[in-house]
């Protein structure tokens, strides 16, 4: 997917430039773009170093664990079909609290652990369970308190008030997460009333543990603590 998007931008650019007589501008733009890429990345260093330092303190002080405990009633409400005291719940809580603090690096392994635990409860290992879909919904719209990456970029380009978008981002992310939860509930209820999908009985070894495959094409989320959301 990412490969196609990238190719699309480049090919269409050159064709459009030829049609518009802008071919020199495009060459210049390519080099300028490369330069901006490096400048923006370097601008991220300061805030990433600072924020990850703060987060290590929070982690060592047990704040992440504390937050996870606070989230436990919410998690139990969102995952009614996971048995109480199942290890999956613990991982889900850690995943959500790491996301909340904008720790994409810590959130992803926790989320994968949670998925592996949920997989143990799955009667059909190739098909996602409702609980898995809920966990995914929470992660695709993940709530982040501080969009660190964006604050850094805004600082880089001389914003008068780089943090003014914290409130708007928080509001938008809460609405997006609310929508994700609502849609997930709706599908859950619908799939419950409909006849259960026929379980595929193909003879295929599906229970082997799959290696954690990070699609190299777009692994930015994994390297950005600006959030699972490159926030």
């Amino acid at each position: 997917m990412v490969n196609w998007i990238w190719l699309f931008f480049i090919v269409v650019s050159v064709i459009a430039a030829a049609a518009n007589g802008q071919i020199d501008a495009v060459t210049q733009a390519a080099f300028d773009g490369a330069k901006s890429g490096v400048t923006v990345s370097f601008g991220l260093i300061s805030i990433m170093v600072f924020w990850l330092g703060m987060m290590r303190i929070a982690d060592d002080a047990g704040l992440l664990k504390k937050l996870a405990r606070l989230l436990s009633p919410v998690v139990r409400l969102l995952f009614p079909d996971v048995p109480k005291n199942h290890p999956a719940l613990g991982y889900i809580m850690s995943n959500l609290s790491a996301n909340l603090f904008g720790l994409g690096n810590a959130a992803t392994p926790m989320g994968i652990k949670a998925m592996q635990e949920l997989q143990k409860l799955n009667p059909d290992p190739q098909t996602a369970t409702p609980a898995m879909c809920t966990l995914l919904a929470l992660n695709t719209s993940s709530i982040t308190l501080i969009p660190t990456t964006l604050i850094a970029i805004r600082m880089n380009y001389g914003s008068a008030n780089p943090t003014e978008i914290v409130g708007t981002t928080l509001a938008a992310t809460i609405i997006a997460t609310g929508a994700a939860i609502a849609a997930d509930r709706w599908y859950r209820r619908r799939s419950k009333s409909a006849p259960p999908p026929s379980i595929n009985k193909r003879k295929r070894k599906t229970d082997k543990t799959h290696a954690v495959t990070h699609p190299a094409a777009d692994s930015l989320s994994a390297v950005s603590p600006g959030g699972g959301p490159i926030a």
Partner: protein
Amino acid sequence: MLELFTRASSWLIPAIIVFIPLYAAFRKVPVYETFVEGAKDGFGTAINIIPHLVGMMVAISMFRASGAMDMMLGAVRPLFDWLHVPSEILPLGILRPLTGAGSLAFTADLIQTYGPDSMIGRIASTIQGSTDTTLYVLTVYFGAVGIRKSRYALKVGLFSDLVGFIAAIMICLYIFG
């Protein structure tokens, strides 16, 4: 409401910055040393982004300079103008769920072109920060345990991205408008 937003924006970060070390010190954590230890990871994280960002910013910068961006946006501009929404952010809405690096590069490009404190810069920042890359999360999380049929998960993710996109625009127009 408006007051609350600006207050939240300016108080949240200092509150967190003072609360974390204070709480940690109370729990007998050596705060400064722990900070330095954790901060080391930040450098590598920022450096790892370089190849992704360079690749995407080259493509997007070319796309803008060639005039292709204007040609594409020309078609939707009347509709967006009518809604009083800057059409420049539409590609961001499309890129956001598909590629994290691409949408980050596009956001940086918008902020560079129109300024971080312009309406476009603020909306772009809010959109980029408010959701995660749906396609990436789906691939990593389901790929890790070998799920092939994701059922309605993609639809839910894309729906919440759309809601987040619209919400980000409306909130920014309301707060900063």
